[in-house]
């Protein structure tokens, strides 16, 4: 029975996001956003890593997006290192956009230039 409960608990892994340092209430998590752009800067820092992304808007102008990722221990457990993302990389991020409408989001998964998808 105990093991059965463990099995059920394991399934919650698929259902429940892993919060790290703060709630995600300021992001639109129920309506995911996917954006692509060129990495300007990657901050490999706690309590969260950040990517600054040059994204072309509807009129062709570049807008700098701030992409929040998990904290370093979580990223390491997904296989990240500090050079996983580099300036100049074309990447795609999927996550929740800031409710304020600012060019800011938290990314849950990220597609690297070679197409690999990583938890973020």
């Amino acid at each position, binding site marked *: 029975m*105990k093991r059965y*409960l*463990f*099995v*059920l*608990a*394991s*399934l*919650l*892994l*698929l*259902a*429940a*996001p*892993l*919060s*790290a*340092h*703060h*709630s995600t*209430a*300021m*992001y639109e*998590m*129920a*309506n*995911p956003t996917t954006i692509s752009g060129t990495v300007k800067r990657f*901050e490999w*820092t*706690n*309590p*969260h890593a*950040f990517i600054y992304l040059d994204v072309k808007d509807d009129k062709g102008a570049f807008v700098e997006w701030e992409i*929040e990722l998990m*904290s*370093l*221990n*979580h990223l*390491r*457990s*997904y*296989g990240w*290192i500090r050079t996983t993302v580099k300036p100049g990389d074309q990447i795609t991020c*999927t*996550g*929740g956009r*800031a*409710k*304020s*409408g*600012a060019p*800011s989001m938290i*990314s*849950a*998964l990220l597609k690297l230039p070679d197409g*690999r*998808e*990583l*938890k*973020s």
Partner: protein
Amino acid sequence: MTARPLAIIAVLAASTIGGTHSHEDTNATKTHEASLYREFFVGLRVLRGFVANAQAQQTAAAAPAQATPGESPYRIAGRLPVRIMDLKVEPATIQPGQSVTLTWATENPTSVTIDPLGRVAPRGQQKLTPSITTTYTLSVTGASNSSDKRSVTVVVQGTTPRAAPSDAIAKPVKTVPRTADGHPDLSGVFGYGAGGRGGPPPSPGALPTTPVLKPGAEKFKVARAADDTGQYSSCMPPGIPQSFLVPYYIQIVQAPKHVVIAHEYLNLHRIVPTDGRPHPPDPDPTWMGNAVGRWEGDTLVVDSIGYNDKTEINGYRHTEALHVVERFSRPDASTLQYEATIEDPNVFAGPWVVRRTFPLLPEYDSINEFVCENNRDYKPLFGNK
């Protein structure tokens, strides 16, 4: 799905529950409880799906993560399949007595093992001196039953390969290690705690796991504004026992007269004397309290007072009269059992407990550095909604 990866996933999953709710305990609402129960039953249906069509799941694991409209991006990310990025050994051929460097890298894993070394971190490098020709096999498991495997061989000239490499796997230690003075050795790095709302129900007669407020103490229940991202956003210490309820590793270092309990989150630590000394009289109120330890049989009992009133415990504030008694034990070689009994006569009608079970992580020597150097003010991101 085999028992081993299943167990690992279960531990991670249970820890996820603990970790998630630890953030949301502060505004623990019935809605959140209901949502967890809903997810529980969704999980049950998914389980039936697994059993009914394991083959289909295997195929799905190889496909890229696809989103369904309105789905949380973390659920999508939770389906990303595991993969091996690198496994190499340099040099590949040596003379007896020479060393090689084994390097490996994986992505999106839930468990990583190298036969015959045992559990390892998702990425790493290890210097090895095999005495005979040896094949190293990297095995990973990940979400949606995905898995991968790769091998490299070190040829030790003039030797014959090991007949059955898996016989040489570093088997997990079965018995609880003990220190020279006979106490169980609690030392080790431990993963996220399990057993929050996902844990078993308390036994009859056990202390409650949710507090009862004394009359007039309702103001100590935390109510958060919609744009308050919680007690952790400020990077202030969570205190005890809350430092055990966050999704970060902990490390215990046991010495004859002290036990050091260190938390990766904010790199907080306590150096707990176990030589029988009492608390100092009237200790200054601090974030992590004044702790003294003693052994009761095979259980380390840590008694602490001297807390400030700035921390929260599972959604409740407290006063400087907080008194916490923690019990640490190793029910088996791979588990740390934790129980904290919480008392504050100004707030709670009686004592209550928080329990967690932490898995030993033999693949790590120490917790990581954690400094909140890049913390943010998230209020502007809420906008005016």
